[in-house]
């Protein structure tokens, strides 16, 4: 019973080919493979980290981006603590679709208070020279949609990837504290009760 670890589930959503799997792999394994297969089905990786003294296990879920796979993808939205809306700065369509991804997530994740849910927006492929989406556009969208934190990332050269995940964790933890503070009831204790590392049934 020395350390307490919280398990947080984050999910990467966005159009096919914006780099969701690459971001996840960069963050968890610190590797990048430009020719990584596109994701079929659903995958996840775990990553342990410490944020502001909190020990956290991040469970990062990665899905197939194509519309067709929606019915397979959406059951996994449930129970997410944070959603990383991802687009690629060299693909304006993927940026325009952010709103749809957000909607889909809120609907299927069964989010109780969408306006309070912690979304983080990632504009990936910062390393690519031909940008189609400017930082200003992206920031404006984030501001108008709920003041979401925005990070321009490059899974290829590791820019801002860890920072973005850490911010995601902070947002979730901040949410928890606020909720705990406002309604100190049993039901909230269920909400991410820390589990003791390695402990089993006593």
């Amino acid at each position, binding site marked *: 019973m020395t350390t307490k670890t919280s398990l947080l589930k984050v999910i990467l959503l966005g159009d*096919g080919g914006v780099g969701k799997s690459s971001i996840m792999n960069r963050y968890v394994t610190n590797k990048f493979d430009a*020719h990584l297969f*596109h994701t079929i089905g659903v995958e996840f990786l775990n990553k342990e980290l410490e944020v502001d003294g909190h020990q956290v296990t991040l469970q990062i879920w990665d899905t197939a981006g194509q519309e067709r796979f929606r019915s*397979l993808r959406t059951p996994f939205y*449930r129970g997410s603590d944070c959603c990383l809306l991802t687009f690629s700065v060299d693909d304006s*369509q993927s940026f325009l679709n952010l709103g749809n991804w957000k909607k889909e997530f809120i609907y299927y994740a069964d989010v109780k208070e969408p306006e309070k849910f912690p979304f983080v927006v990632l504009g990936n492929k910062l390393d690519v020279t031909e940008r189609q989406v400017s930082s200003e556009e992206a920031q404006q969208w984030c501001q108008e949609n709920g003041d979401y934190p925005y990070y321009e990332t490059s899974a290829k050269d590791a820019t801002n990837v860890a920072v973005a995940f850490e911010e995601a964790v902070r947002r979730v933890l901040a949410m928890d504290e606020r909720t705990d503070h406002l309604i100190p009831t049993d039901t909230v204790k269920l*909400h991410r009760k820390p*589990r003791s590392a390695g*402990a*089993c049934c006593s």
Partner: protein
Amino acid sequence: MSAWLSAVCGGITHRDHAQVLFEHEGVFIHPGSEDQGLEPDLLVSGSLRIIDKDAEIMVDYRPLEDSVDPTNMLCAGKDSSSVVEWAQSSGERSAQLLETQQSYETEWDMINAVTFRKRVCANGEGSLQQQQQPVQERSRWAFSFGLGDLRSVAVKEEGWTFIIFRLKESSSVLPPLHFHQGGSTEFLDSLRRFAMLTESADDVSCLMVSTPNKALSQSFENLLDDNNFGLVHKFKKDPYVTTLGGFSKVTNYIFDAFRGTEEQHQRPPEEVADLLGEVIPGLEINQQEEPGFEVITRIDLGTRPQVIRGSPVSVEDWTKQQDQEGRMTNVPELKHAIFKGGLCHAVRKEAWKFLLGYFPWESTTEERKALQRAKTDEYFRMKLQWKSVSEEQERRNSRLRDYRSLIEKDVNRTDRTNRFYEGLDNPGLVLLHDILMTYCMFDFDLGYVQGMSDLLSPILYVMENEVDAFWCFVSFMDQMHQNFEEQMQGMKTQLIQLSTLLRLLDLAFWNYLEAQDSGYLYFCFRWLLIRFKRELSFQDVLRLWEVMWTELPCQNFHLLVCCAILDSEKQKIMEENYGFNEILKHINELSMKLNVEEILQKSEGICLQIRNCKDLPQSISAILGLDSAVSSPGLADPGSGPALRTAHRPDPCSNGLFRETSSNNKVAFIS
């Protein structure tokens, strides 16, 4: 609560719906202990049961008929401040019950006919009615609740053990049960079979109860719930499945118990909330069951026959089978050889065209040349269609634009370590792109769906020719089309069929998966969508596919391949006690670690094993196509195939042969 109420009232008329899983007599309630002014030594003796009723686990306490003096009980009831109120299901029904209340059986009905309203009644304001007193009094102390409604069990000692149930609705308090004649340990052990009991953090005598997570599996049930599709419908209604599902939830909860509290905390709060709401609807499934359902009991499949794989068909073996005009002779024998050993790589370019149905087996060399000419024209006509779309046109054609954009992205992410597709500006990439774009023109409704590039890549690699690769791909897509359609019907069907097969082959494992909310086997999604393309090395994929294209030794052989792989992983999964997430992760990580020959050997063994089974359930025969004359001619009688085939006039321009085969498949799918 209304769903609960109706479920209970509607389902109980047949006693045989309920099965007693645990029973212990001599469990007492001390009615006076909490209330002033009552005789302190008044005891109600009764029996405590755990019941499986329509796959819902209930805890049920009923006083023994002759153990209580009704008048005393009336007193007890009147002043009780914390007694649970009971509601009769209907006036008519309770009148009937009153007349027959003497027998045990009707009392059983009685219990089921009343339900728990979870409301504390104010002093003296209970719904006692004079004319119904005897029944009311006896039932006054009876209670029953679904395990899903149970929050905690407090276990206390007072010279004997007594326990207090707390339900999730915190206002309801049930009277403590005193185990004057022992049995509390047995009861709790029994309870642990159906729910996880974990010591509360602040009170070790209090065991928190949790029942497993239904939320996610419920989502998958929704995914698979499509009433337009007969098989799914039947599956959903199949009482065997339902019952078994319930049963497996029961037997396997013990695994959860071992897992301790960790898993519980991984469960996100939303799902916990859903879980609470979804414990109830599960009851309703059995209410509309159809008569004449198929009951599959545990079947003894016998030992799995040892299978020896053969060596690949060589160029000589292949040419030997051609007559002077180039017709393939002895096709069943040839197919059997390919099934047993696959093809040498040198034969693939030719043989795959036959296996996939691009070339009819009985066509002559000349006919095939004519076919190729016609198909070449057709291909380039379609290729020209997308090639000639101007930028401006494309701007107004969002579907084409989306297809193109995704194809470009995916081509760059398909088999890039393969020599044929590696590096920049590899011609293989251009071909992959062009063929996929042309396929969009060939079937614009389907267009491009992720996974299709995986299916094309090995074909193009073998064909080394754009036109041949395209038409072979078209043939392969005829088989795989349903996987990629809007509703993903092919995927749903296959997952259900696979579940049906696995249940027969390995009930214990299937039960385990079911208890981990993984009974729908969605972790096999990638296997099925692209036929193991990502699971095996490139060379092994070639072998597996050519073997499967022989359509031997049975229909849907690829599902037995799934079973074979799962059979090899079962031990690990169960020993490590993998839950929902770990199973998914484990299966995903099998990629590139599998051995194709081992898998094929095992799959064929499983097929033989099933074939040898005398009382094969109809559902299994239908999936594997074992029960009729259409079943594969290859193994049993290598000489009977060609007659069927020659009866069909080859139509070089329509891929007629293949379509026929694929429509056969469809029949089998739907049955």
